[in-house]
């Protein structure tokens, strides 16, 4: 039997060779490349005005720049956070929407329902509270393995949503309105209609998160995560304090999820429990795995796709969720590691691919 992987090998090789080309660039070239990409991204709300590209990227029925912020930025932030939990530490979290909800609710409570803090001040508080929730959920449950953790986290997400729905103090099913907006700065007015300032803010948050996560990933903590993901028992034997690092993964993931919630609450100004359904957790997970679990840039791409494609496909409004489901299956059948799989050393890569060839019935 041929052992050369699947028919997407050319695609994978293309990605690999782009990656290799990138790695061969010198410092100066790399930085200018980053700069170009980042500037282009900041200009994304105007892409629809570009002659040929505009009609291709524009979303029918919905405002492109609103989609960029409300859907794409939120999904990218969340995917980045969830990637730490699922992709790096290998912990299957089906209730990640819970942290997103915590971030949004803390902001809502502090700036509207029970307080009058400015949005900016609520941000660090909400992030810290989200991390606390990460610890609260993680500490008792991280001893559970794989699929048990999945259902427990799923339950956690539901508990958060239902608690918000049933407690008057949290606005119950009415939700919380009049959430404060981010402060106007550099001439950017954070109003109700124009989504562009929120997008700039969101993109900035994404870049900061990417930078921070990048640092963490290549630190001792990141290496410990990889060790846990590959073989938890072996990691434990090697002296990695697995519980501590798993908890860290959970907490950092929660912080990013919470941050996304803060950004969302500040943008929409009104939240209610129905904004945080269980299905959203599943979409978040789909984003991470679709893009390439374990690779930050894969997670970003996955977030963009899962958020953007259904909006782009609004033409066949009621069939787009069906199409999305089928696309997920097809993607997993033909590119199971995601679009941008995690990049590993060449030797390691070979070993990994060959071990995936083992034909054991799972």
């Amino acid at each position, binding site marked *: 039997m041929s052992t050369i992987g699947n028919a997407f090998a050319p695609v994978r090789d293309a990605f690999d060779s782009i990656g290799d080309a990138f790695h061969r660039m010198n410092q100066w070239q790399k930085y200018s490349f980053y700069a170009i990409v980042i500037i282009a991204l900041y200009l994304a709300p105007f892409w629809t005005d570009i002659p040929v590209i505009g009609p291709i990227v524009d979303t029918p029925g919905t405002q492109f720049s609103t989609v960029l912020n409300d859907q794409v930025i939120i999904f990218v932030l969340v995917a980045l956070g969830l990637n730490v939990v699922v992709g790096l530490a290998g912990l299957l979290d089906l209730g990640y929407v819970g942290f997103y909800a915590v971030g949004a609710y803390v902001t809502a409570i502090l700036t509207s329902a029970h307080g009058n803090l400015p949005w900016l001040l609520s941000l660090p508080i909400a992030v810290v509270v989200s991390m606390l929730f990460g610890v609260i959920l993680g500490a008792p449950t991280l001893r559970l393995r794989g699929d048990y953790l999945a259902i427990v986290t799923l339950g956690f997400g539901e508990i958060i949503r239902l608690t918000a729905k*049933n407690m008057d103090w949290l606005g119950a099913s009415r939700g919380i309105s009049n959430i404060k907006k981010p402060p106007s700065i550099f001439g950017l007015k954070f109003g109700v209609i124009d989504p562009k300032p929120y997008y700039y803010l969101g993109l900035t948050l994404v870049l900061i998160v990417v930078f921070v996560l990048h640092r963490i990933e290549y630190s001792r903590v990141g290496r410990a995560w990889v060790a846990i993901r590959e073989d938890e028992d072996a990691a434990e034997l090697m002296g990695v304090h697995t519980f501590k690092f798993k908890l860290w993964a959970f907490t950092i993931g929660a912080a990013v999820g919470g941050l996304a919630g803060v950004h969302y609450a500040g943008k929409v100004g009104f939240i209610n429990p129905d904004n945080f359904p269980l299905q959203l957790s599943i979409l978040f997970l789909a984003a991470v795995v679709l893009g390439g679990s374990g690779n930050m840039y894969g997670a970003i791409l996955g977030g963009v796709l899962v958020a953007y494609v259904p909006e782009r496909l609004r033409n066949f409004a009621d*069939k787009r969720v*069906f199409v999305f489901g089928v696309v997920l299956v097809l993607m*997993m059948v033909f590119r199971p*590691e995601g679009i941008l799989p995690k990049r590993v050393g060449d030797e390691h890569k070979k070993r990994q*691919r060959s071990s*995936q060839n083992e*034909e054991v*019935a799972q």
Partner: protein
Amino acid sequence: MPDWLIIRTFWDLTVTGLALGSIYALVALGYTLVYGVLRLINFAHSEIFMVGTFGSLLASSQFLNIPLLEDGNYPYRAGMTLIFFLVVILIIAMVFSGISAVLLERVAYRPLRGNGDSIGAVALAFLTAFIVSLIFIDDTQVNVIISLVLTAPIAYSYLRIFKRGRKAPRLAFLISAIGASTAIAEAVGVWGTHGRDQYQTARILEKKTVFNLFGTDVRIDYVIVIVGALLMMTALTLFVNKTRLGRGVRAVAQDAETSRILGVNVDMIIIVTFALGGVMAGGAAMLFTLVYDQTRFNIGFILGVKSFTAAVLGGIGNLKGALLGGLVLGLVENYGSAIFGGQWKDVIAFTVLLVVLMFRPTGLLGESLGKARV
């Protein structure tokens, strides 16, 4: 004794809790069987149940031609006719669920095991052509025709890709499952005759009280559900423990590699496993429509999450655990609702799960399909 609602209505809550719990348990069996054999959360199992409810809907409305109402009243049947109708509906629901479970395995899982075959390739090819044609034309009939034409060449190339197949990582199975689940539910929601609305199923069983339990009237449909579920579960346990294929299922669950060496056809066993889970879900679906006489495209989701919770609560991979978990969950939900109010029902269910797993990390009865014995 304090005069609490839960105490006043204890037996009432118990009967209805056991009935709902029996349905949870039957669906939980599907999760547990597949998990036991493949170590895979078959996320789309909930939709297998949903398909079963539509199977019983079609059975009563199309095959048996029973109207929803006769002169403004339910079309009750009695005696042998009733039994015959119920059996026909049960079998058709089981066939619907069983076949869809097996198809699901072929399309969404088997190719990921690096083992795809022509049925999976054809189905995936058809779906590919269909969604691609959807982008250009939004007319279902035309789409179907285009897709049928394009199926063969695409299937051929898919089959070639399968041939070079390799095994996908675990997470990919879960996402594929989620995708399949979404697609199945949405397909019914989009192309079903009532779309996303509720469907009513004909009620042929008059819901009479059959006996009185500590002052609570127990209705015939609840008795049928509980007894039916127990019978089906016993049949399944006997099958798994006493038959050759059943032994194969247990063997693969415990050690797939050795099973192959001893001549067990693992692919065959996986099909059997999905079929068994599907048949149980079909039975659950028939019992469900018997009590609630309605269904909907998204009916599987909540019930699926609950049943999966039940499976984990009892110990996933463990047949007795599925039964115990289902019944416990049904009861806990009902008692909890009486104490804290219905809106906290799901919170209570998940909290119980959390607490149980903290003290017993592999559920009430622990894992392992192989160890599940009568």
